[in-house]
């Protein structure tokens, strides 16, 4: 069962590529970076043991170019591939090609990626496993079926694309008379966006919290959870701030959610790290989706458990059992992650350009995961995330204080960033009190206040 890994090709860029390179280094494994011509000066290229150019700037021709990626692994003599997150991380076909070419894919089995990529099948599978799901339907065969379901479930309902996920391809319906039309629109949009027009109906929860559980599973049937994360602060369904542990869950509910996540992973025989996302409505919780990858926000879990999740993921891919984790990890303190993006702090529009001056915060309890440096050019080709600022403190209050002081030391000049938004959030009573829902930003965002934070610091 053991497949030793000696050289990993990292099919990604940015901070996660660097994260994987770091884990490889510490494990004594060689790393091969890939890069597009736009990224030739990137840190992941500099710090990997080797690097191969795989295409031009457009992701479709480089970081998503499977033949070139596999060829790069071949010429570099890699024996494993780490997909990071985004790009090909949840593409079952990529995992299959890797396997076919004798490359260990550092992630779950392709069938689990495919299963969880299909939101309707995932729902059904979880329901069978005894994991709570929201009242809803399978793939709609007709608008009438949606109407019948809505009458049964009660309004409002939400239409979701089966091939969607991560907040994409969703429509809330509050008026029954509009439902048939909306179903047709949703189907057409899903077809255009995902090449699959399947949509389904679910009960819509008005004030949900996004709680997710980190799962670590080996290929010997062992599954543990490394506690939950609170990710309710989102803008346009993109997470902005994540915390661990979550605030305001009763211990009982926390235990139930964690147990449900482990049950979910066990039910399908999941292997590798993964995340089961739940929607929490008061003291009830429902399966939302499972992410079959390492996530952006894995760091907050690392900070409170002391477990190096990427190293663990690589170990699991080589066939090692996770037995030791059960004994080793002990939660300590509270961690918060801020995603620092090159974007307008209020409009959220991306802001490519050159970073003319840069200062990362440092000191006790502060971690920065970033691929940028002074002089770095933020390309419009890719995601706008510049850095993850992660703070850790003995308790949530101290973590928030540390978050504030670290945000104040964080300097990025030359381009706009969402630092003012983070500084503003860090002082909002609703944030400090905890227990906020996913509408936090919609509800509270005060554009003028954020802009005035911007001016104070410029």
């Amino acid at each position, binding site marked *: 069962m053991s497949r030793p*890994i000696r050289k990993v090709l990292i099919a990604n860029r940015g901070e996660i590529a660097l994260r994987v390179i770091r884990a490889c280094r510490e494990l*004594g494994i060689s790393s091969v970076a890939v890069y597009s011509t736009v990224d030739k000066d990137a840190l992941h*290229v*500099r710090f990997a043991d080797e690097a191969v*150019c795989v295409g031009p700037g457009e992701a479709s021709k480089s970081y998503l170019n499977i033949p070139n990626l596999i*060829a790069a692994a071949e010429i570099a003599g890699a024996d494993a591939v780490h997909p990071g997150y985004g790009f090909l991380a949840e593409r079952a076909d990529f995992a299959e090609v890797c396997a076919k070419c004798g490359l260990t894919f550092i992630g779950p089995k392709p069938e689990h990626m495919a299963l969880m990529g299909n939101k309707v099948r995932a729902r059904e599978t979880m329901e069978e496993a005894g994991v709570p799901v929201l009242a809803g339907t399978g793939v709609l065969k007709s608008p009438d079926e949606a109407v019948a379901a809505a009458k049964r479930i009660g309004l409002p309902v939400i239409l979701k694309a089966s091939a969607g996920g991560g907040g994409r391809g969703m429509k809330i319906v509050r008026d029954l008379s509009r439902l048939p039309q909306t179903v047709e629109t949703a189907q057409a949009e899903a077809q255009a966006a995902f090449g699959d027009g399947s949509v389904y109906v679910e009960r819509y929860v008005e004030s949900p919290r996004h709680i997710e559980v980190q799962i670590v599973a080996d290929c010997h049937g062992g599954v543990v959870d490394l506690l939950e994360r609170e990710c309710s602060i989102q803008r346009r369904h993109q997470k902005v701030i994540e915390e661990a542990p979550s605030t305001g869950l009763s211990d009982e509910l926390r235990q139930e959610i964690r147990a449900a996540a482990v049950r979910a992973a066990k039910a399908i025989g999941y292997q590798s790290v993964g995340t089961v996302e739940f929607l929490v409505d008061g003291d009830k919780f429902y399966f939302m989706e499972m992410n079959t990858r390492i996530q952006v926000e894995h760091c907050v879990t690392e900070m409170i458990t002391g477990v190096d999740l990427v190293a663990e993921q690589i170990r699991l891919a080589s066939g090692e059992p996770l037995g030791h984790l059960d004994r080793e990890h002990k939660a300590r303190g509270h961690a918060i992650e801020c995603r620092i993006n090159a974007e307008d702090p209020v409009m959220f529009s991306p802001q490519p350009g050159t970073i003319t001056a840069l200062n990362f915060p440092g000191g006790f309890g502060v971690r920065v995961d970033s691929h940028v440096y002074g002089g*770095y050019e933020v390309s419009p080709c890719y995601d706008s995330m510049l850095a993850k600022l992660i703070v850790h403190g003995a308790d949530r209050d101290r973590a928030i204080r540390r978050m504030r002081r670290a945000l104040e030391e964080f300097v990025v000049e030359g381009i706009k960033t969402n630092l003012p938004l983070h500084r503003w959030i860090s002082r909002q009573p609703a944030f400090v009190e905890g227990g906020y829902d996913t509408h936090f930003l919609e509800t509270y965002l005060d554009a003028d206040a954020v802009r005035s934070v911007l001016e104070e610091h410029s």
Partner: protein
Amino acid sequence: MSKKRDTDDGAPLTPGGLPDIRYVQALAEVFSTYELDEIEIESGEHRVLLRRSDNAAQPAVVVAPAAAAVVAPAAAPVVEEGEFIESPFVGTFFRRPSPDAAPFVEIGASVANGNVVCIVEAMKLFNELEVEFDCRIEECLVEDGQPVEYGAKLFRVTRR
């Protein structure tokens, strides 16, 4: 699982006959340390060239680009002026359709738009590379069987 750093096993990366990859890496290091724009080494009767063009605009604080470790040094000896045929694939470069066949193109030959000039093999697929304009092949910049990355300069050509 190997717990030791791989460097110790020192598996040779370099296909026979080519300059040792470590030599190329060392050159690249010199290159970056001294912020050169060009190093040329010929070997037959020696020739060394270091060059830096008037990059008055030194990107002062750019930390990163010091040493991009390139597995396939194909793109490295980008020396001469002129036009090139570059690899749109990552893989292994072959000048011939099979080991004992003649090269697709000889140096000095004139080729027409659409002619196959070489193969880049990856995943057992032999990707034929067609030239996209009429030209004369002046020089082949990559040795047969050498790995090439995207954008590697394969042939220097003169457009006709």
